[in-house]
């Protein structure tokens, strides 16, 4: 599995999920865990899941609380101020689930995967995805969404 192939799958999956489910567009995106000007600020909300199959690994999505509310508003069809912290967290978890499913099907369309239930992790505690095979950030205008994929074995 080539790094370029993984980056392409991450970019396409995120754009597809955000446009279809959250009515949000991506202004810019690039390889890495954050844009150069971000000063390494940790996202306030992060959802992580594990997947079993060939390959197995982990997947993580992070966003600021403000961005999670904006995306959550699009997903739930509500005003940004109506989206609670709990709902914002649920939407980030659901994004992790959908983006991961989409990425895996792009990378291994024939393989079967068992994807765990996504869970919110405290900022800075993404231990299982600490060694990411690929990371990518996405500027949505209202904030930066980050995704990272960890692979335990390659085909």
């Amino acid at each position: 599995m080539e790094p370029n192939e993984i980056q392409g799958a991450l970019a396409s999956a995120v754009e597809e999920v955000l446009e279809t489910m959250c009515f949000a567009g991506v202004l810019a995106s690039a390889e890495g865990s954050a844009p150069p000007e971000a000063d390494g600020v940790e996202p306030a909300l992060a959802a992580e899941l594990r997947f079993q199959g060939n390959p197995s690994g982990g997947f993580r999505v992070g966003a600021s609380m403000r961005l999670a509310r904006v995306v959550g508003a699009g997903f739930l069809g509500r005003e940004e101020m109506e989206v609670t912290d709990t709902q914002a967290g649920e939407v980030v978890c659901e994004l992790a689930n959908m983006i991961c499913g989409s990425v895996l099907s792009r990378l291994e369309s024939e393989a079967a995967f068992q994807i765990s239930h996504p869970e919110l992790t405290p900022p800075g505690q993404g231990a299982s995805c600490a060694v990411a095979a690929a990371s990518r950030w996405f500027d949505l205008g209202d904030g930066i969404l980050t995704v990272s994929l960890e692979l335990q074995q390659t085909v």
Partner: protein
Amino acid sequence: MELHVLIVDDSPAMRSFIRRVLELSGLKVGRCLEASNGEEALRVLESNWVDAVLTDINMPQMNGEELLRRMSGHEVFRSIPVLVVSTDRTEGRIRKMLTLGAKGYVTKPFTPEMLREELEHSLGVIHGTE
């Protein structure tokens, strides 16, 4: 005629999304019941009639596969069309769910049009209008 549905998904956000998408799709939706797993869905069905069940696969306690098995083995519930809504796009999984009795399969992410089309197809299959 109004369409009464049961949405089964462990994510409250996804249940809200499906409910909204059903309304946006132009279908005339009546009662929209919800359950967070297969076990809860069976309890809801015991006391409520619905025209269709939309279910996720990966859920705690009782997953979508087991829900389909139980419904297929039930004298009354076997006649209710089930539409699977899942992130799993693998051919093997789709085939398995259809073999277990699902009438349709929609992969996330999906548009209101995709959900409507697949739901109408599922309802058509069960009513023999195809």
